[in-house]
């Protein structure tokens, strides 16, 4: 698993990259009540806002950490947004992306580096 400074995690799954947010981020957001996901097939560039997470308190955007195509989104979050709090590292993944250039992942943090950042 790799981590971004924006508290996203990235997990390589075959030729796809699965993207979610960390436990730390989910805890900071508070109770999540709505998740807006992009459509499968959307081409995105690094920094594009691809997901909106609404907690009881506020709306937050999740930016694409890499360039590529969104090939699958987690529809379970539409009915059960609370999964983001209950299981942020597992069943509450947001999108799976096909990444053109896998070396894009090289710059991200390891788990230890991420833990140091939030400590």
């Amino acid at each position: 698993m790799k981590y971004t400074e924006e508290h996203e995690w990235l997990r390589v799954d075959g030729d796809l990259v699965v993207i979610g947010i960390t436990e730390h981020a989910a805890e900071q957001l508070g109770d999540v009540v709505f998740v807006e996901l992009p459509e499968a097939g959307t081409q995105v560039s690094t920094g594009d806002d691809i997901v909106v997470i609404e907690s009881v308190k506020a709306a937050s955007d999740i930016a694409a950490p890499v360039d590529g195509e969104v090939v699958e989104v987690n529809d379970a979050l539409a009915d059960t947004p609370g999964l983001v709090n209950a299981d942020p590292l597992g069943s509450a993944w947001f999108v799976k992306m096909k990444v053109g250039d896998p070396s894009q992942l090289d710059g991200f943090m390891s788990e230890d580096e991420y833990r140091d950042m939030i400590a």
Partner: protein
Amino acid sequence: MPNLSRTPLHDLHCELDARMVPFAGYEMPVQYYDGVLWEHLHTRSSAGLFDVSHMGQVRVCADSLEEAQIALEALVPVSVLGIPEGRQRYGLFTDEAGGILDDLMIANRGDDLLLVVNAATRAQDIAHLSANLAGCSVTPLIDRALLALQGPASEAALAALVPGVAEMRFMDTSALDWNGVELWVSRSGYTGEDGYEVSIPSSRARALAEALLASEAVIPIGLGARDSLRLEAGLCLYGSDIDTSTTPVEAGLEWAIQKARRRGGEREGGFPGASRILDELESGAPRRRVGFLPDGRAPIRAGARIFREGSDDPVGEVTSGGFGPSLGRPVSMGYVETGLSGTGTALEAEVRGKRMPVTVADLPFRPSTFKR
């Protein structure tokens, strides 16, 4: 946090693992361990304890109570003379243009009036009172804390410590003894639930909070749930839903202006902005505060503009919005042109550049449970 004031319960909040945030110049708990959703639902099903010590408590007195009541009527469209001893009433400070300077509670305590004003507007309210209440003394009560206990289990939890509270009705106010301390209790609140607001000397506030939290029914509640509770109850947040750009009639607060202060009343007008406000009471205002129920699941928050279906000219704006935990759906309130303010009117809100269907709804979103 630098330059922020603390309430007498600050250390207790920290011991209870509250997440503290800056609010109106104070360091305040936004939520505790269980989070906003749980705190909200617990308040509706049992009882929640809120620290509202940041709000301003102000004593107004004169040579006679009547003199103080008459003086205050020059600043509010409320029949202050009509508040019986031992009762309180919701009120508004208005400005010359008919806008709202603040909303407040006014209690008649027999010898004096006790006002409770918003934290963010406290300094300007006190200056306004001091400058304009002829012959009155205006005393900010800086050494008293204010706790709110809200929810259906409030009566039992507070009556276990202070038996006299059980006899009180909604908007009654009373001075009652607790272990030798004089509490100023009112049966009121900001959640739509039955409950109490209790003024207590700062030095004893923690002891009272701990005695209430010792009850299994009571948990501490932060500002997050305070906001979602008042939103479901259709109650205005000063600075968001009402301010100097909104009038009492636009805001749907006509009920706070008693007959005695209206046209043809015994003490008609005589408050700032009276001509506009009295006109609007008779002929209506161009826009109204209403509820909006989003058709979808996305919360529609303050600032979202409201449109007729397919039109590009805004007809209103959301002033508060979020998720309503007791309703299990998003809820919003805001202003819309009066012609479009009828319950059930289908409109659209703009969120992140997209149009979302909303329906105009009556406020409150959920019926209140006051003990009248």
